[in-house]
């Protein structure tokens, strides 16, 4: 038992400050500079006070700092509540509490505040790295707490860390059980407002020259795919995203609403897979062309864009089925076809003129398309990630002057030419390609794989995919962006994959990240239900889960307690003691337990008072026990006599 009013030693202060700094450190990136300075000053001040042994500061001074810090937080965040302001306030108060920390009781309070601060870090980041760092922090805090309970002597560092480690290890099974069995709520792990949606790159519902080229610079993961069936060929890996219909001369835009129903003819075997999409704060969900089903909590229109009901603010997982050779949009509405022919007046006159002349030359739609693609292929067009800037008539400039560009300008030009020639055309954006993680057997699709292609509508055949970029640079589609881009193009190192070792390392890391995402962060109610069904707990309601939780927790605590008790009891080797303990146990079951510090004689006298009928038996056993255990005599026959007496004894 430790006395809570006991004053703190300087080493306690140092441990406290160190572990609190460790916990608060990740917040430093997000806090205003003055708050970091304040916390550092307060911590240093407390260490100094402990070092030179002067009294703690006046409480009026502290009150002044409290008011100033609160005002500072309010001015900075315009509120005192919510995630950011709350964390800022917590860090400030933690530093101030250090200056009030006199006794062990205060230190324990700080320890628990520290544990709380650990949780707040998860409001911002839930990666595996964060989890490991915070686990280390928890270890450190626990070690500090262990140290606090060594009042007189300083424990060796090793002992302190080991004790804390053992404590954490003992709690690990409980943690696992709570994680697996605690009834899950759907949605992100934290019901916190997400105000970090800015600055995340991803496709959008508009496309201007350069918008996709910017994405190419990012090796961030867009989504990961686990195929159930065979992995399709590279040239079939078109991941369908926003479909753009409207052109205002510079920007292509997706319609605000979805029209019609997704109707299609499968035309082949389905490809089955599971997509885990990273949060991109837009509503698109991606699927292989052509998505054969709509994920839950999402919908789709006749142009097969998958739109979630709510922006994808957290990692989501959905099962998908796609048909690679399907036919769709044969009976497209007149309204949609008109929309797919619209061109703004006054833009790109030379291109429109070119299209009209081609139309006169090639009355057949398919022949016309082939001719345009042939021109892209043969007339000196090239594929580059760093296209020159284009002016108002971007298509004209591209087709007749620059002739080098990125997929978006090819798609845009192709669409303008087709529409001018009277063929309904739209642009589909999404991703093309994917890299297989050989260790995990899943596919990674990065932002750098962003792509734009076209769909043209042919009478009787519906919408057909045409990729003008493929005509210019077949490598882009067949071997991926890295093969197609010139060496001088600024492509992320990881996407290029020149260094085998680095790439292997990166794949291993991605494997861990993916497992973490799938099994820890992505442990949703559905996955929980599946897992529980796997161990024979069908239709797991929360009541059943709570019951299972209690039972398993109880079992684990019991096992741990038994292990610990065994270690305690292991010392009892003396047969005399064992026999006596058995005797005490018999009485305990009758509601007459022996106190741990109660001597055998005292115990016997106490029992005799409440159960006079047992007096002779108890006296005999006690006399023999005391003689054998504390007297000078020994003898196997007397030990067995004690055993016999205990065996015959019944209360």
């Amino acid at each position, binding site marked *: 038992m430790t006395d809570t009013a006991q004053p703190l030693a300087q080493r306690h202060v140092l441990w406290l400050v160190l572990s609190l700094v460790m916990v608060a450190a990740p917040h430093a990136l997000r806090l205003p500079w003055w708050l970091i300075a304040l916390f550092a000053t307060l911590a240093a001040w407390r260490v100094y006070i402990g070092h030179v042994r002067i009294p703690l500061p006046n409480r009026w001074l502290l009150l002044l700092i409290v008011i100033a810090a609160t005002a500072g937080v309010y001015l900075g965040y315009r509120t005192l509540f919510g995630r950011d302001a709350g964390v800022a306030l917590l860090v400030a108060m933690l530093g101030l509490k250090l200056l009030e920390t006199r006794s062990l009781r205060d230190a324990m309070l700080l320890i628990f505040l520290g544990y709380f601060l650990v949780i707040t870090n998860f409001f911002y980041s839930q990666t595996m790295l964060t989890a490991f760092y915070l686990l280390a922090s928890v270890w450190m805090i626990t070690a500090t707490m262990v140290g606090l309970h060594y009042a007189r002597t300083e424990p060796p560092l090793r002992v302190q860390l080991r004790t804390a480690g053992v404590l954490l290890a003992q709690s690990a099974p409980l943690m696992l059980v709570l994680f697996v069995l605690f009834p899950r709520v759907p949605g992100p792990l934290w019901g916190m407002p997400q105000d970090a949606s800015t600055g995340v790159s991803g496709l959008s519902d508009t496309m201007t020259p350069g918008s996709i080229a910017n994405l190419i610079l990012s090796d961030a993961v867009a989504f990961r795919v686990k195929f159930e069936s065979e992995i399709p060929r590279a040239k079939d890996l078109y991941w369908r995203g926003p479909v753009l219909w409207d052109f205002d001369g510079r920007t292509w835009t997706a319609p605000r609403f979805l029209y019609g129903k997704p109707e299609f003819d499968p035309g082949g075997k389905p490809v089955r897979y599971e997509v885990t999409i990273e949060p991109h704060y837009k509503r698109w969900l991606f699927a292989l062309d052509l998505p054969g089903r709509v994920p839950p909590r999402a919908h789709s229109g006749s142009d097969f864009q998958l739109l979630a009901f709510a922006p994808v603010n957290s990692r989501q997982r959905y099962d998908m089925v796609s048909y690679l050779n399907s036919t769709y949009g044969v009976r497209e509405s007149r309204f949609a076809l008109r929309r797919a022919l619209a061109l703004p007046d006054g833009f790109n006159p030379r291109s429109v003129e070119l299209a009209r002349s081609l139309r006169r030359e090639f009355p057949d739609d398919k022949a016309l398309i082939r001719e345009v693609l042939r021109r892209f292929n043969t007339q000196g067009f090239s594929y580059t990630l760093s296209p020159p800037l284009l002016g108002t008539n971007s298509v004209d400039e591209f087709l007749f002057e620059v002739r080098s560009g990125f997929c978006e300008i090819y798609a845009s030009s192709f669409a303008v030419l087709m529409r001018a020639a009277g063929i309904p055309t739209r642009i589909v954006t999404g991703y093309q390609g994917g890299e297989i993680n050989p260790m995990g057997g899943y596919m990674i699709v990065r932002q750098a794989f962003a792509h734009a292609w076209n769909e043209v509508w042919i009478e009787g055949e519906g919408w057909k995919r045409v990729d003008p970029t493929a005509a210019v640079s077949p490598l882009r589609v067949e071997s991926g962006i890295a093969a197609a881009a010139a060496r001088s193009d600024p492509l992320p190192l990881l996407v290029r994959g020149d260094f085998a070792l680095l790439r292997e390392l990166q794949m291993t890391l991605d494997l861990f990240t993916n497992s973490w995402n799938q099994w820890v962060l992505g442990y949703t109610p559905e996955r929980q239900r599946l897992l529980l069904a796997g161990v024979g707990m069908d239709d797991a309601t929360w009541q059943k889960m709570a019951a299972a939780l209690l039972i398993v927790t109880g079992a684990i605590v019991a096992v741990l307690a038994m292990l610990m008790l065994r270690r305690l009891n292991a010392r009892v080797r003396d047969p005399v003691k064992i026999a006596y303990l058995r005797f005490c146990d018999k009485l305990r079951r009758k509601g007459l337990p022996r106190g*741990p*510090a109660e001597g055998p004689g005292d115990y016997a006298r106490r029992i005799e008072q409440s159960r006079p009928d047992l007096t002779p038996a108890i006296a005999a056993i006690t006399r023999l026990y005391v003689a054998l255990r504390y007297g000078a005599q020994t003898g196997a026959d007397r030990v067995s006599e004690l055993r016999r007496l205990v065996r015959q004894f019944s209360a």
Partner: protein
Amino acid sequence: MAPDTGRKPRDVANSTGRPIPRNMTQQVEKVVAQVGSIILGKARQIRLAIACLLARGHLLIEDIPGVGKTMLAHALATSLGLDFQRIQFTSDLLPADIIGVSIYDRENGGFRFHPGPIFSQVVLADEVNRATPKAQSALLEAMEEHQVTAEGETRRLRQPFFVIATQNPSYQVGTFPLPESQLDRFLMRIHLGYPDNEAERALLQGEDRRDLLAGLDPCMTAQELIALQHDAQQIHASAALLDYVQALVGHTRRAAEYVNGLSPRAALAVLYAARAWALMAGRGHAVPEDVQAVLPGVVGHRLIPADETGRINGADVAARLIRQVAIP
């Protein structure tokens, strides 16, 4: 738990390692009864005091004036058949007043040593904390060494030799509290406390205590006492009992609630006192109850709670310690 009254420790387990002569324990009981007739209602303290002496330890009686400290010391000395000297400690007491002085003897033409009151079998050091540390240490050295050195000559003290010191609570005015190191020299410290109603009435109705004291007869001789002390040392302490003593001592060293843990000397003191207690119960071996019975007296003055907010008496500290440590 420790018996809370002065009842005679009952022998629950009479199978002894070595038989205790019946008359010996009877003699001890006679001493208890005789002293108990002077100091009323304090049988438990009297037993502890006798156990302390049987364990060859010195005894410190701490309490407010007038509860019978001196009377107890005097009655004990007389009943045990020992000669008795009393030193009243005052702030101007000098070491020579305790040890003795050499005075020039005109007839022999040399200095002759006049032994002081320390050369007695029972020395009652009354109000030991009123003297200066210098005088205190003269007494305390004699207690430890059982010999004194005066004028370059070492003289052995008589056997048996006991110091029974009384002390006023140190928060009273005009006291020099004994330092911890010197407190440690006393095997036991006991408190007498106020008598209960019944005992006080008997005291008021009875004869003058001083007359009673003058009429006391010794119940044993010094030789018999020495034999008893020897027997007490022979009391069997089994491994299980030593485990218990070590568990108690170890706990005080590990727990943060004491300023210092118990010293090895304190551990020995617990063991010796427990043996004496077992002897008085007529048992040839010590049991955990013996340890618990003597613990308040033995550790009360040695254990200082770390949060000394108020004065905590020895019995409280010991009771807490007993509660916290399981008997192995």
